[in-house]
């Protein structure tokens, strides 16, 4: 197992290296070059030349890539463009955690991300938790009552849930819970249509929670549909197996047979699946945070794309790719850990 993990980690480093080259090339070979939009500002052509020199964008691409990766504080650069290389560079490179400065705010990219990341983790963590908490009982019940009315309903729901575009669902929920349904006591909209908290009022838990309801519902529905369906079929494969018959024969209650003996095996693939899906739940944040004006990473990325704030976009993509690879590794390890039949050489 240790050898397996070590080998996978080495592969991961290689993979991230290839990805960093692909992404770097993509952004820097883009027509107009990385400064063409410069965070949405209009700048004079002379200024562009100066900025290019300052950012080191006048150097050949492979050199730029090395600076971006490993920094340039170990060599002398010509920072005031008088033709003499007289000062050490200031960049540390992404390997040492320096993702550069956002074109738009001129703040370090990691600082920008650090401000928004907790909001996204809160939203998506709660979404994930809600999805699992609803999907598991739903899946168990429809597997036990296969072909019943409830199962038929749950199956239809799961097909529909997987086909609804998130952003459309979000707008429908706003329409229902913000525009149409009113709070019977105050006459105000039942739920807020966006944001993380009401402006002007202090912190209140109920206010925060009410702002969470719609984005969480929007994000969770598709996952509920997917996981409940998956658990249903994984349980249906296990329920006829002999070891459960023996468990019943030993006099265990049906409840114990299903919830302990069957479920613990049926959940193994789900746990791995959740680990694999985790990055996609975060990618979904782009649409959900845009609809609900949620100040998180998704909206940050969206704004950065509109203004073509390349340092920020690159940072999010590299971190995102690293996260996906990490989740894949975790899924593999979890699988081997939970299922003793799985062995990695």
């Amino acid at each position, binding site marked *: 197992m240790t050898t397996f993990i070590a080998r996978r980690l080495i592969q991961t480093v290689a993979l991230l290296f290839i*990805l960093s080259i692909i992404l770097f090339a993509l952004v820097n070979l883009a027509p*107009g070059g990385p400064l063409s939009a410069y965070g949405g500002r209009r700048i004079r052509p002379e200024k562009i030349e100066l900025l290019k020199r300052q950012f080191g964008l006048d150097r050949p691409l492979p050199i730029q890539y090395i600076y971006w990766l490993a920094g340039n504080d170990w060599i002398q650069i010509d920072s005031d463009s008088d033709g003499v290389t007289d000062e050490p560079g200031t960049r540390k490179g992404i390997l040492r955690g320096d993702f550069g400065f956002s074109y738009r705010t001129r703040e370090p990219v990691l600082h920008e991300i650090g401000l928004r990341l907790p909001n996204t983790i809160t939203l998506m963590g709660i979404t994930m938790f809600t999805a699992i908490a609803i999907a598991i009982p739903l899946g168990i019940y429809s597997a036990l009552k296969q072909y019943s009315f409830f199962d038929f309903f749950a199956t239809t729901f799961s097909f529909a849930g997987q086909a609804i575009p998130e952003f459309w669902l979000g707008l429908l929920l706003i*329409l229902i819970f913000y*525009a149409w349904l009113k709070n019977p006591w105050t006459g105000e909209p039942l739920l807020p249509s966006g944001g993380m908290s009401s402006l002007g009022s202090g912190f209140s838990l109920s206010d925060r929670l009410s702002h969470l309801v719609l984005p969480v519902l929007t994000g969770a529905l598709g996952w509920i549909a997917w996981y409940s369906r998956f658990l249903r079929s994984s349980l249906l494969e296990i329920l006829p197996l002999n070891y459960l018959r023996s468990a019943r024969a030993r006099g265990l209650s049906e409840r114990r047979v299903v919830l302990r003996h069957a479920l613990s095996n049926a959940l193994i693939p789900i746990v791995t699946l959740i680990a694999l899906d985790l990055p996609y739940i*975060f990618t979904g944040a782009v649409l959900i945070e845009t609809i609900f004006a949620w100040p998180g990473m998704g909206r940050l990325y*969206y704004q950065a794309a509109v203004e073509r704030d390349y340092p920020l976009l690159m940072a999010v993509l590299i971190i*995102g790719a690293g996260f996906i690879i990490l989740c894949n590794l975790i899924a593999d390890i979890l699988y081997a850990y939970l299922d003793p039949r799985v062995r990695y050489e």
Partner: protein
Amino acid sequence: MSTYTSIEILQNPAEQAVDLAQNVWKRFRRHRGAIVGMILFASLALLCILAPLSPYDPEKSNLAEKFQPPSATHWLGTDALGRDLFTRIIYGGRISLAVGGIAVAISLLIGVPIGALAGYYGGTLDSILMRITDAFLSLPSFLVLILLAAILREVEIPFFQRNNVFTISFVIGILSWMTFARLVRAAFLTLRELDYVSAARALGSSDGRIILGHILPNGIGVVIVEATLQLGYAIIQEAGLSFLSFGIQQPTPSWGNLISTAQDHFIKYPWLAVFPGLMIFLSIISVNYIGDGLRDAFDPYKVLERVGEYT
């Protein structure tokens, strides 16, 4: 060599294909959801194909008639510029469905050859191709999609002007071929070891003929099922991208950008957001049911089990 050996006649790929198609269709018909899905999808597609029959122009504004609710003259109402929403939806459907279809075609064109070569030849070629596949699978695809579309939105190069249908299909396609590559590779890995392939090789068939004529037809089932599901996926990707305004650009309608523009007014004029989204929903759900039916149809035991002919 103009005469066929008896084995080659028995293995005539064309005859096999007809047989396979008939069997699959026979089993597909038993899946009620899939048939309903197919009828629904066919009617949506037909509606979009017949779009020019609409008396209204999809792009010309008519401010005198803006924000009309659904009525007999404007079945689904009109938008902020007085354009008939039904007309814009069916024209938008042409774009959205075309993007879906072309995107799947592009990912098939990339994924199937990569998977076939990797699975058939194995060895170093396999390792290289699969590492590339892994790299693409590790990309946060929707985020890269946004980046690519945001870059291409600003440029003028032949075929890629202003995020037209081809541009959007292309970016979706080059980010979604990996599943095809993996499925085809897996099919080739098992099939290439079978006796009929050795027989074909012994008879002197070229690698190309074995790959295209002997192995690929037997692995086509999973590819077709996956292609159907990918169609739905591509439609939803285009819609999401256009919703964020990086996809198909105004005034050309697509289901995604219709919802995007509706955002400003949908509280007061809900139909503007509800109907285009309903079209996306209906097309995805019908495609998913078709995919489900095809999966059963290509897996004979599952269908027989369902109708009780096999236990």
